């Protein structure tokens, strides 16, 4: 339960951090809040010769509204996200998903960027980012670029960032109009990783027809997933007439790599997932229609 020895680096600026990551290559790992990394180091599931602590880089933390989106710095803690009035009003899905992350002591240190860069398919923020089509801002010594959430998660705990790139901020689009949002999870114990979960965002027009919608799936594959088939089936239909249970069934239809372990078989998780989608959809639909 003690991590293997490593060298510790605490850069105070982004260029310094990027230079270190580039120089150290595969030997280095970024340390943000450490709430995922330190347990795996303690259990010696992984070993790194160098940790680059980005917690002292002031410019990486903070929340600001920029045109049509809310930009959240990578080292902003989950507690800060959960307590922020702008997040609650502009990106309600993110605010509502936050209390489902671990426990309050974990959220006091865990960061938004850390959770998303760690890319755990059972975690909340990666699914929210994918559902809302967030934009990842990444930086390397060569410059900055943006990656769409849909192109960001490419496998279990794996992203399309290059080894010398670092996630610096995430921009969440602010949905306007008649919108509703829902997030539901099932876990055996409060604060555990969900066995399955779902995130839903939807917008209806004046006649309560679904204008656009997004359904995210938590813990039902090797990455967070979107239920594209169920989404396109719902667009154009009257939100009041849509059967939420049918949306749920459709959302898990055709999933190929549902995990199975001693906590539940793939078929069980699939059924739990369908129910979570159904509940999240019902809540989002109710909110959007102003019921």
């Amino acid at each position, binding site marked *: *339960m003690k991590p293997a020895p490593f060298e510790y680096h*605490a850069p105070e600026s982004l260029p310094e951090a990027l230079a270190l990551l580039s120089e150290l290559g595969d030997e280095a790992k970024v340390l943000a809040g450490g*709430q995922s990394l330190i347990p795996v180091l303690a259990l010696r599931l992984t070993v790194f010769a160098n940790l680059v602590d980005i917690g002292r880089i002031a410019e990486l933390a903070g929340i600001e509204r920029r045109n049509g989106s809310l930009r959240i710095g990578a080292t902003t803690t989950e*507690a800060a996200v959960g307590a922020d009035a702008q997040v609650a009003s502009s990106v309600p899905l993110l605010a509502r998903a936050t209390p489902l992350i671990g*426990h*309050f002591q*974990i959220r*006091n*240190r865990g960061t938004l960027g850390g959770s998303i860069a760690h890319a755990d398919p059972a975690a909340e923020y990666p699914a929210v980012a994918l559902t809302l089509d967030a934009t990842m801002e990444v930086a390397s010594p060569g410059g900055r670029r943006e990656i769409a959430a849909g192109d960001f998660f490419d496998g279990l705990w794996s992203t399309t960032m290059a080894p010398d790139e670092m996630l610096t901020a995430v921009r969440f689009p602010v949905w306007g109009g008649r919108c509703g949002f829902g997030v539901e999870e099932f876990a055996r114990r*409060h604060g555990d990783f969900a066995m399955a979960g779902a995130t839903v965002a939807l917008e209806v027009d004046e006649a309560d027809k679904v204008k656009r919608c997004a359904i995210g799936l938590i813990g039902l594959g090797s990455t967070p997933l979107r239920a594209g088939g169920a989404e396109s089936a719902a667009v154009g239909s009257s939100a009041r007439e849509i059967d939420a249970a049918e949306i749920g069934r459709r959302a898990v239809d055709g999933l190929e790599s549902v995990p199975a372990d001693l906590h539940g078989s793939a078929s069980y998780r699939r059924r739990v997932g369908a129910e979570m989608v159904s509940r999240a959809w019902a809540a989002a639909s109710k909110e959007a229609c102003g019921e």
Partner: protein
Amino acid sequence: MSERSVRMTVNGEVRQASVEPRLTLADFLREKCHLTGTHLGCEHGVCGACTVMVDGAAVRSCLAFAVQADGAEVTTIEGIAHPDGELSAVQAAFRDCHGLQCGFCTPGFVVSVTAFLRDNPGPSDEEVLDALSGNLCRCTGYQGIIRAVHQAAGTLREAAGA
């Protein structure tokens, strides 16, 4: 691997030591500061026994390295009672309500609850359960702990109103 010098304020006292970067904050407090009230159960962030406050926020000290807390203000269970030794409202409530038996998990509970009630002085039953969910107790069955939180909340509210 090279050691680094860290300096932090623990319960109001400045502590400085040269440490390996891999030394957790929990081990720093126990081994370098000899403050053994912070208990280590699981050492990977599950049990909550090692909870301390870092700059006022309750955190798991097994999930932080001492080097990350360089410059921080840390409060451990030893810093919770009043300076004259009188128990804090939370500690007294745990005693009165049988909120502890063997006492192993108690420091983590007391620190967590102290931070929780500071931020939420009038919690609902559900909020209390949610706040306690990050700490494990294998003796009490939790009922005494839940009563202790409500009693402490009442005592603190009275004190604030007085």
